[in-house]
């Protein structure tokens, strides 16, 4: 069963029938030395650092899936009001953090 994710408080077309509580997921990733070196070179000419973009995108998915797993264990079928944050905790490593409220959603009756 896939968990619905939304960063709004209400999922359009659904209503919240039960609030379960705050769930969160995090991951801390470091880049390998080769990538750091390329990134260092990239600060000379500027522009997008693709290696880091990819790494952070993957890591963020990991944080989100940990959050979803936690919600699923608690019996939720959705996480609403999801927020994401990134922070550099030490040299060469970043923490990706996702948090939200686990809820049980039910499809709304179509309005006539």
């Amino acid at each position: 069963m896939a968990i619905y994710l939304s960063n709004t408080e209400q999922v359009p077309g659904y209503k919240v029938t039960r609030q379960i509580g705050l769930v969160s997921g995090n991951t801390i990733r470091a880049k390998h030395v080769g990538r750091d070196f390329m990134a260092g070179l990239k600060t000379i000419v500027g522009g997008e650092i693709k290696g880091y973009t990819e790494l952070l995108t993957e890591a963020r998915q990991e944080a989100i899936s940990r959050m979803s797993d936690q919600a699923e264990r608690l019996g939720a079928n959705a996480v609403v009001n999801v927020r994401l944050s990134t922070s550099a905790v030490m040299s060469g490593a970043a923490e990706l953090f996702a948090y939200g409220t686990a809820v049980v959603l039910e499809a709304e009756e179509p309005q006539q």
Partner: protein
Amino acid sequence: MSDFINILLLASPVILIAMGFIIGKVIESRHFRSLAQREAGGGPLLTNLKYLPDGQTPQATKFCIGGVVIASDYFKTFGAKLKSLVGGRLRTIETMLERGRREALLRLREQAAEFGADVVISIRLETAVIMKNKQGKSYPAAEVIAYGTAVRTTANDNI
């Protein structure tokens, strides 16, 4: 590793500034052209309201994220350092963040368009500085992310 880069940076500042100026300028103008082109392409409506526009019924939703890590070039960094001696507006860093934001929003929009969304609601933009060296000094590089809820809708006929 960063020591090696530091030595390299100390050894030849003039070459690096020239490289940053020329290559950086080419990369930047190419990026701005690509941004303008893709922005003109259209796509789902972007909003940071929590509600759908009136008269639209939701069909399906998906959480979408667009992210990019963007770095400033050496010439611009040098310019910004000089400018910060006297203070004021650091235009060179402004353009870096502008590129990052526009790129992140475009990626969000492209992802939403792939899903077939008509509207992306509740968009949030966030910036984080992720590159720091051992002395805690940060490079002029930032990660910009844009995230929101993509919604596929059908228009109500009776409105």
